[in-house]
């Protein structure tokens, strides 16, 4: 890679190229998330072994292979461990002919990726384009082309500051989750320039509705919306990105704030482009689900050459690949009757006893596994002791764990470092156990709850009664003198079971190592069906899949409604003021822009915009002096004709049209009563101007059917018109037949 690049830059005459800066990369060795707790309390995420190799090795090896020459590893939590690791690793050894250097940047007060990038900016070490990755990225893609595309674009357009690597992925249609356990992402991409125009990672899955800014469609002749793309979290950035982070000190999250910020903010005009990689592999270990998936991908060699038997990674010993994808380190003591199934990895110095069965699992170094143990789709790290007769399925067991005889780990269990589990204990599904107590939350209520929960979980009925009594003893011991007394209790264990809040518990299966249980999948496919049905019947209603809405979401929603009233009044006033400025001669484009930004800042829908705008138009119409109703009607029609294009910006579907009619009703009833007699007349006009379609009017009428008599005055007033519409449509249908 190195020499090739030199040759290329030497051959080009571009002065910018001649002053070549080495390709740099920023590696964030902190995910700024808590998905891997409780494990990450003791060890940083990037040092967690993925198929027996710390994750950061994969990222560094990949960066080295794509020709990066300088890597800045940003460490925050557990920075000492990261630094120690790097100092011992092959990467920081005095470089030979490979020009690849790794240096660390440390900061202890950074709490987000945004903070990290601001720290890096202040160090002013980045001199040119750089690659921004997090330390948990596994990839084997060739970045050369993406880099070139980025550079070419930069030459033409200095505002193209970032190229995001994306990949095709199919989120499951039932769970709306990718195989990596991340939520479906909706991206709007320009089909030719590949510019990213829209990014939404928190789309409302329950409603299955996304809201697009109309300006987006106006400004771009073509836009392709994707829900089948996976964000690889590999970004090629220009140095401006760092300064942008510094300028906008409130940017925290790379995607949620920075990317969305740039997309929404038209003022600076910065653009983000995408690069889609096809054959190669790129993924990020974001949660336990992706840990499981990526481990399996590595074992199945999708990440070649970053696989265990090719010594790209600093694994220290050579694992041999045998038939059926079994990787075995040289010093494994395997009992004759033990069976290691396909797609497994057994690490160095591990002993496996008689009649033990291991399948699709990864076992670390120096583990001792007893007799009749069944290990299925589990991840066992180093120095783990598993005594006879244990059963593990879909579990993750960290370093130094001791499972005494007969322990059963149900699916999705996480045992953090040095946990000991007493005999014949059954750890219920999705539990997380750590020797460290769960950190207290700020809320005092929750703290109480937590204290209850720790003891509560142990006493939970899922533990066999035999173990129960014994275990309670242990636990009381342990709670009194945590840690110190643990060794005294020979038959029992050490560790706290972490409690999860109710809302989280519901979601636990989504990100767990274990496969999604069948019932959940069925439930999902049912609700998906229901959703579809309901959407067909009535598009405006929210599907009632209550069981899937976590509690927290529910309350959020309620809170939102409560605030709505206050906000919407403000919003209307603002829109009206903006509209007045338009009357005073401000360019229509700017008005659109301002209303769009108002919409975003007040978190309103397009329907609200349409309503507010319509209100403003009507108000301006009524402000023009008039003598009788005919004149008022004429004035109004004129105003509507004048502004209909503006209005149409926000009327994208029937919902908005109905909103306009309702708003009109409200205006007539409450604010500008002068329009009362003109309701049908203007409605007809709106219909003729194609602002409102007949479907909208008819469904509005439908909706009013069950309303109070007092609400029905306008329906009655428009009776003739509606009748006429109905007849007309019937005639249409007749003609069609």
């Amino acid at each position: 890679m190195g020499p090739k690049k030199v040759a290329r830059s030497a051959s080009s005459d571009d002065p910018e190229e001649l002053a070549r800066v080495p390709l740099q990369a920023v590696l964030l060795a902190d995910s700024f998330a808590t998905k891997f707790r409780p494990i990450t309390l003791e060890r940083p995420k990037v040092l967690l072994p993925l198929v027996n190799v710390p994750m950061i090795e994969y990222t560094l090896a990949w960066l080295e292979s794509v020709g990066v020459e300088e890597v800045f590893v940003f460490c925050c939590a557990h920075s000492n461990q990261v630094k120690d690791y790097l100092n011992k690793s092959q990467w920081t050894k005095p470089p030979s002919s490979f020009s690849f250097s790794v240096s660390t940047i440390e900061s202890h007060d950074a709490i987000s990726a945004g903070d990290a990038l601001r720290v890096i900016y202040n160090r002013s070490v980045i001199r040119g384009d750089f690659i921004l990755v997090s330390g948990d990225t596994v990839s084997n893609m060739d970045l050369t082309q993406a880099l070139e595309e980025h550079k070419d674009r930069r030459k033409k357009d200095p505002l193209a500051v970032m190229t995001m690597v994306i990949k095709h992925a199919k989120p499951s249609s039932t769970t709306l989750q990718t195989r990596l356990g991340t939520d479906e992402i909706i991206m709007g991409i320009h089909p030719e320039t590949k510019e990213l125009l829209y990014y939404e990672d928190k789309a409302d899955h329950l409603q299955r509705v996304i809201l697009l800014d109309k300006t987006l469609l106006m400004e771009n002749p073509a836009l392709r919306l994707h829900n089948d793309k996976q964000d690889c979290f590999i970004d090629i950035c220009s140095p401006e990105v760092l300064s942008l982070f510094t300028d906008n000190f409130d940017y925290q999250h790379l995607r949620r704030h920075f990317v969305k910020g740039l997309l929404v903010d038209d003022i600076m005009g910065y653009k983000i482009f995408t690069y889609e990689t096809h054959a190669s592999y790129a993924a990020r270990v974001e949660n336990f689900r992706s840990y499981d998936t990526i481990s399996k991908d590595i074992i199945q060699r999708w990440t070649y050459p970053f696989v265990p038997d090719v010594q790209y990674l600093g694994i220290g010993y050579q694992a041999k690949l045998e038939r059926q994808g079994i990787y075995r380190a040289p010093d494994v003591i395997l009992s004759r009757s033990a069976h290691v199934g396909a797609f497994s990895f057994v690490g160095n110095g591990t002993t496996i006893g008689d009649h033990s069965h291991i399948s699709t699992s990864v076992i670390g170094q120096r583990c001792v596994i007893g007799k009749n143990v069944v290990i299925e789709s589990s991840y066992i790290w180093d120095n783990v002791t598993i005594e006879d007769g244990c059963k593990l399925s879909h579990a993750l067991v960290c370093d130094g764990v001791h499972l005494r005889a007969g322990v059963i780990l149900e699916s999705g269990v996480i045992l953090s470092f040095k946990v000991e589990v007493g005999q014949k204990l059954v750890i219920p599904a999705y539990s997380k156990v750590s020797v460290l107590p769960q950190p207290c939350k700020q809320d005092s209520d929750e703290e109480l709850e937590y204290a209850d929960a720790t003891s509560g979980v142990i006493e939970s009925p899922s533990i066999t009664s035999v173990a129960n009594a014994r275990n309670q003893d242990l636990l009381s011991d342990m709670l009194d003198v945590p840690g110190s007394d643990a060794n005294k209790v020979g038959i029992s264990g050490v560790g706290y079971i972490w409690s999860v809040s109710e809302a989280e518990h519901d979601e636990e299966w989504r990100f767990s190592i274990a496969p999604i249980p069948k019932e959940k999948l069925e439930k999902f496919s049912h609700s998906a069906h229901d959703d579809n049905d309901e959407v067909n019947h009535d598009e405006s209603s929210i599907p009632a899949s209550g069981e899937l809405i976590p509690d927290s979401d529910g309350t959020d929603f309620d809170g939102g409604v409560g605030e709505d009233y206050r906000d919407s009044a403000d919003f209307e006033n603002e829109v009206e003021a903006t509209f007045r400025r338009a009357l005073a001669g401000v360019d229509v484009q700017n008005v659109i822009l301002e209303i769009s930004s108002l919409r975003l800042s007040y978190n309103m829908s397009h329907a609200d915009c349409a309503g507010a705008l319509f209100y403003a138009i009507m108000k301006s119409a009524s402000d023009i002096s008039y003598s009788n109703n005919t004149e008022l009607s004429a004035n109004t029609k004129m105003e509507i004709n004048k502004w209909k294009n503006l209005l149409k910006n926000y009327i994208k579907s029937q919902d908005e049209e109905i909103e306009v009619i309702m708003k009109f009703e409200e205006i007539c009833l409450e604010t500008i009563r002068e329009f009362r007699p003109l309701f049908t007349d203007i409605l007809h006009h709106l219909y003729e101007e194609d602002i409102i379609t007949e479907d909208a009017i008819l469904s509005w009428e439908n909706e009013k059917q069950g309303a109070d008599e007092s609400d029905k005055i306008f329906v009655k007033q428009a009776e003739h018109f509606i009748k006429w519409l109905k007849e007309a449509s019937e005639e249409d249908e007749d003609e069609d037949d």
Partner: protein
Amino acid sequence: MPDVQALVGDFALKLKRRKVEGSHASARQTAELLRSVVSQQRLPHAGQAAVLIDAVRAVGEQLIAANPVELAVGNIIRRVLHIIREEDLSSTTTAMEGLGLSADSDDDNAGDHEDRPALSAAAVAAAARSALRAPSLHTLLEDIPESAAVPHASSSGGDSEGKSKSADKSLKSRKLKHDVIEAINELIQDIDTCHEQISEQAVEHIHQNEVILTLGRSRTVKEFLCAAKEKKRSFRVFVAEGAPRYQGHVLAKELVTKGLQTTIITDSAVFAMISRVNMVIVGAHAIMANGGVIAPVGLNMVALAARRHAVPFVVVAGSHKLCPLYPHNPEVLLNDLRSPADLLDFDEFSDCMDFASRGGSPLLHVVNPTFDYVPPNLVSLFITDTGGHNPSYMYRLIADYYSADDLVVKRRSTS
């Protein structure tokens, strides 16, 4: 020698990271690296050959461990070891001719080398003969039993010699090193010119209006075919495309630019076409000691088809691909499983590998082996830079190029 160590480390890293690929490139670079190892190695007055051998072994161990699948690396290391032994032997014999031979060997035997066979005059003579490369079956048979003993003995012979005679040792040390470097240079040259030497023989094998079938792309095969074309032979070539890397397409392009009549077929069409073919010519990744071939995937099928229709199956390979090891479980141990991405698009099949909703165990497996093992009975002829050979003759060539001591390139912990 931090200098050499760095070089070795670099090369090992390159091999580990699969940055050096192809047996030709690996062989050449290994030889060059060993040349600098030898030239920078400081030699003591005594036991020069042993020191050199140890140094080369130390390097060799690292390199072989770095990429055990690339057999050419190990081959070159063994060749260099053999060269050192030979050069040492020839210099010893010349030295011994000057000295009183018997006294030295007696000295030697009185020491702690009792377990080793005596260094008899006959053995020395035989060794000297083999050093002078007298490749007759007779010498070979005579040579083999002692060959294990000769190098140790000779090195210790050098030892005692150093004690007794110190006059010409500086000259000798320079001479040994010089000779070895010379020989390695020759080896490098051999590797460089192997294509020409092989393709020189092309006219003898390819006849007018013949149909040749090959699979995938091998540089040796390409040059072989082009050489025949240049000698005004007109013939046709069928190229099986060599899935999943489809190197056959590249080969077809190259052949067409040389004006050869070329037909591309899929790998699965080989059996259908083989009855029209006069000869199959393919390249190899390595030739094993039993005459079996490690070759690009798909070739075993081609060989079986050729055997079924009694079509000669010819393997062209430079002598650096000749490996003195016997294949044990070659389908697994000498294979390289590459990324399944060559076979199918990961993205398209990602829903088949959604472990979350499919019970947690992978149902779809994709296996992409790089090599096939073609057993010796399916090969009709090997064409190397030294001429055409039968598979059953391979052991003989190997005895020429390698010393039986070096089959295991590992430093002995004792001695």
